């Protein structure tokens, strides 16, 4: 069990997932800034999302340091911006955190600062994008061929969008009651959810295909070894075997992080379209966030597990 947690890099699972939720939520809120159709609860929503975002991202950052052998020296990791994706990631998320705090403060002020706020929103979102990019680049390295694939960035981005949209959705359910604007808003959310789930699905399948091809490339039995470039196949085979050894995790991922949001997104659209019960929609959003979170969690665990040393 202990080894499992260690190999699954539980600190990093928590850090990446939580930070991605926040990034996704900021994206949604930023888009919201420019949607004039949004109703009067925008203020409360903006406040609540950003005020949730600050502690969650703070927690994520704090948690990331538990991965370190010497957490109290974590600040030193800012030193190698020029060469290291780890440094860049930490810069990106530190800046994100700063901007998010500012953004949250601006929401707290009042509606009059909206112009500045929009600028900060855009900047925060860009920082979020950079966060996701640095975060994925960090894993897309030849040293770990199992991760060195476009699906990594796809999965990270899709996770952010999916969970972010659902988080904003859940917060919305808590504060808004008037049906008409809610329906419009839920339709936007459902669209984001469907798009993100589709991206996640593509990433998931691409990854499976990528890992599975290792065996052909290496043409060797498990744990075996080829020479030169073929060795990359060995690494993929190692990853593939781990996927095979953890069928529960992968099926959870497929079911809860792809199938469930797709179905939920479609259902949500249908509910809104047919002017169905908002209560039902609310419940749907609540449970979807829970399920998708579990699904992406399973996916993230298997992601880290596959990145085993291959030599």
């Amino acid at each position, binding site marked *: 069990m202990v080894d499992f*947690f260690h190999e699954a890099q*539980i600190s990093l699972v928590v850090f990446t997932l939580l930070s991605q939720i926040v990034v996704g939520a900021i994206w949604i809120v930023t888009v919201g800034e420019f949607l004039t159709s949004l109703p009067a609860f925008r203020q409360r929503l903006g406040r609540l999302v950003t005020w949730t975002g600050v502690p969650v991202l703070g927690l994520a950052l704090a948690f990331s340091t538990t991965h370190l*052998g010497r*957490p109290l020296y974590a600040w030193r990791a800012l030193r190698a911006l020029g060469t290291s994706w780890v440094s860049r990631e930490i810069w990106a998320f530190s800046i994100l955190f700063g901007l998010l705090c500012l953004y949250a403060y601006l929401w707290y002020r009042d509606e009059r600062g909206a112009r500045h706020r929009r600028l900060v929103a855009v900047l925060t979102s860009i920082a979020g994008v950079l966060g996701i990019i640095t975060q994925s680049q960090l894993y897309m390295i030849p040293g770990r061929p199992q991760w060195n694939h476009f699906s990594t960035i796809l999965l990270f981005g899709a996770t952010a969008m999916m969970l972010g949209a659902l988080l904003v959705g859940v917060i919305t359910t808590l504060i808004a009651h008037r049906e008409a604007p809610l329906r419009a808003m839920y339709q936007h959310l459902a669209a984001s959810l469907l798009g993100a789930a589709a991206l996640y699905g593509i990433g998931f399948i691409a990854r499976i295909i990528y890992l599975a091809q290792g065996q052909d490339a290496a043409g060797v039995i498990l744990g075996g070894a080829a020479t030169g470039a073929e060795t990359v196949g060995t690494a993929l085979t190692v990853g593939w075997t781990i996927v095979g050894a953890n069928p529960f995790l992968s099926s959870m991922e497929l079911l809860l992080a792809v199938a469930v949001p797709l179905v939920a997104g479609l259902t949500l659209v249908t509910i809104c379209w047919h002017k169905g019960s908002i209560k039902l929609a609310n419940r749907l959003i609540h449970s979807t966030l829970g399920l998708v979170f579990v699904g992406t969690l399973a996916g993230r665990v298997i992601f880290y597990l596959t990145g085993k040393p291959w030599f």
Partner: protein
Amino acid sequence: MTKHLDRRAFLKLSAIATAGAATGLAGGSVALGAPFDPNRNHVEPDEWVYSTCGFCGTGCGIEIGVKGGEAVAIRGTKDYPVNTGFLCAKGILQWQAIMAPDRGTTPLLRKNGQLVKASWDEALDAMTGKLKEIITKHGPNAVATYNTGQLLLEEFYTLGKIQRAGIGTDHCDSNTRLCMASAVYGHNRTFGADVPTGAYADVEETDVILLVGSNMAECHPILMGRLTRAREQKGTKLIVVDPRITQPARMADIHLAIKPGTDVTLLNAMAQVLIQDGLIDQAYIDASCSNWPELKAKLTRYTPEFAAQVCGVPAEEIVAAARLYGKAPRSLSMWVMGINQSVNGVTANHALHNLNLIQGKLGKPGSASFSVTGQPNAMGNRSAGGSSNYPGMRPIDNEQGRREIAALWGVPYEKLPAKSTPIEKIIDKIIAGDIKALWVLCTNPLLSLPDQNRVKQALAKLELLVVQDAYYTVDTNEYAHVYLPAAMWAEKQGVMINSERRVNLVQPSIKPPGEAKSDFEILRLVAQKMGYGHLVAFQTPAACFEEFKQTTKGRPNEMTGITYERLVEHRGLQWPVSEAQPNGTQRAFTDGTFFTKDKKAKLWAVEQLDLPELPDAAYPFMLNTGRVQEHYHTGTKTRKIKEMNLLVPTVYVEINPKDAAELGIAYGDMVVIESKRGAMKAKAVITQIGAPKSVFVPMHFHEGPVNALTVWAFDPISGEPNYKQQAVRIRKA
């Protein structure tokens, strides 16, 4: 995903959970701002003590690094001729075995079924009291001793005196019975004395090396290093005879993967090819060998085709190997347990000597018929009369020899036994009730003797079992009535002798733990309590060595020219070291005369005996046993070296992939192995280095004792166990 929370996992967990507090700030020598010191954990000894390695018969020169009264490092002696500073992995790390926490620190006595702490007086009184009682009641032959190839020469000599001139029992043996007995008989019967012919320098001098039944890479790594360097520098050819593709076999120019137990046929056929091709030295045979016509007649039927059929290797390869060997100006044979541990042990030794003698390839630079020893001081036991002979290599059954010894020792000639009994007979006699007491010194018979269940039955039956060992956790202690804690080689003084007859000094570098005493001291104490004080008048190992030296005067293993100081000065001396040869003798038999009555080496016309047990339908696999480089024997020492135990953490069985596939066994699976005598479990290692339908299990692991399976069968001449071939069946656990 381990089920148990072991220490490492716990460390990981605590690192994850409490990383901040524990390591975030502090970090000791790696703290932020601390000077970067790549040697931050290095331990530099205060002093280095000259000594000899305590593991294998290669006999490397070592220096023991001491700091604050503890052994903290071992390094090779740079100018020692055997190893020129090199050591193998376990040689380097063996200081950990000395410092292990389970070293015996006080004697133990069995009370109410438990071994409990006792004073030396109590323990020795209990031991000697019982011994005296048994001797009075049943006579001295109710007492047996069983020792080792790992004590020091002075200790063997002292023990020999006590057991023969003191107790006077016929029942003395040592674990060299399990190891070198066949070679000893081979030497005695061919050369007239137990004299290994070669020198390690022959490895560099020779043109072709024939390695038979020797996994030199794992068992004598430093010799293998010399061999590999010689191959690189001189292109020395290598022929390996071994049923497995060992490292030497992988490198060999010719590898003959013969069917187990068919060496004699192969070697006879090789000799026959030499005769046919005229690659023999008739002048040498005529001048220096006897029994030639008989041998020649016997060999005629050993055609390559016949041997090919018996041994399961192509006839052409046999011919090629023989010609490669025969045509070389200098050629060297070396062998170890693949030859000795067999019902064919002695015959195969003869066949090897024959091969070299008929070419006159003996006693010449680069040419030798070289039996390599296993333990660091097997040769010391053989030289000092520790088990089956009298000091100065006097055969036990030779009256003149006994008279000489009686005179030297000042004891009545009649007192000295004219017999020694192989350990297997001792075990049988214990079971039969004839032997009541067994004194075990520096060996772990519960794990190392064949057919463990029989051995257990015997040990359980003893009225007195004394175990004298460095660790109180030694497996045989399970049955002991008295345990005596012994100092280890690094804590005492004396000499060891390696394969090439090189005598070297062992020196005390640290104090023994607690109340542990050197075997020399223990022996003297026992002797005094038994009333044999007059036999052990020497107070120190050095004085003992001086007395011992006198017994070698004019003998094949003369050591009168040796003093401890000279050993250090010359970096070891190869016996005989006499007035004529003050700086030792590199090669034996250089003049073509031998210690037999007619001064000729006898060519024994030998034939292969059938193996005691062959695979059949019920037990379809051939079980081979032996060693792996990371561990030593019953593991009492190497399993306490963390690095070694991490490399090979537990018992395993080598299975060919074909068989594994058939049995549905995968790498790492637990497998049950059964023979007619017992069963054990081991982890499966699927490997191509063994033939289908054969398996190999190393001997080092108490959790998987391969000797639970081995057959109770022995060489009819030497009494050495047939460890390497038996029938077993295997299945997934």
